[in-house]
């Protein structure tokens, strides 16, 4: 259900695993987060994703469990990459299935909002001007407050 890995993931494989032999769910929502070429006004060359290994899976597990207790979900998959990433690389995958679309949409957003504010990952960007830690975004804290 949770994977934290240096390896890339394959969206088609994850999609198949969510829908195979799953006749009861009519809705699948996925989110993929990718490395953008610009951030906070600078061109990005690549980035490094640090995390707190002992805590990461625990934190993600808790977020997914909270989502499952709030909405009637079928399957949930959450993958987050760590280590060195380039432009356009996949960073995070959230896939949720449910009978009706509302639950999947809500849960996928809930998971991302919590992941963005509670899961111990930190991005360090390399730009033409040098390296810098990415600043946390106030919008993410606001986004979480709606739940």
């Amino acid at each position: 259900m949770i994977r934290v890995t240096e390896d890339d993931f394959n969206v088609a494989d994850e999609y198949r695993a969510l829908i195979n032999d799953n006749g009861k769910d009519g809705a699948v929502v996925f989110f993929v987060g990718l490395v953008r070429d610009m951030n906070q006004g600078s061109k990005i060359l690549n980035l490094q994703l640090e995390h707190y290994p002992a805590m990461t899976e625990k934190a993600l597990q808790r977020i997914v469990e909270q989502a499952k207790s709030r909405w009637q979900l079928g399957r949930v998959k959450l993958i987050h990459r760590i280590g060195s990433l380039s432009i356009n690389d996949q960073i995070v995958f959230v896939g949720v299935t449910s009978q009706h679309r509302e639950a999947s949409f809500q849960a996928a957003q809930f998971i991302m909002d919590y992941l963005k504010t509670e899961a111990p990952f930190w991005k360090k960007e390399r730009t033409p001007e040098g390296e810098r830690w990415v600043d946390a975004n106030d919008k993410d804290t606001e986004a979480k407050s709606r739940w």
Partner: protein
Amino acid sequence: MEIGNVIKVLFFASLREKVGCDSMIFSLDDVTTVAELKKALIKYDPQFIPVLEGKVLSAVNQELVNDNFKIPDDAEVAFFPPVTGG
């Protein structure tokens, strides 16, 4: 010397770089909360002032906690900046 509350303190990301170290062991008898641990660290070395003041998140035994959280014996306490995953 009697060793009382042994705490492992971890730092991540920009805090790790500021401290210049990712992990320390402290034996601090009078420390019961996260806030007191911060004070004790700053008293021990004022270099912790810019590290621990401002927006710092704390986790005790891998769970996010606030400053009033009571630290159990043999805990792992982590300090880090607001997270930026996803």
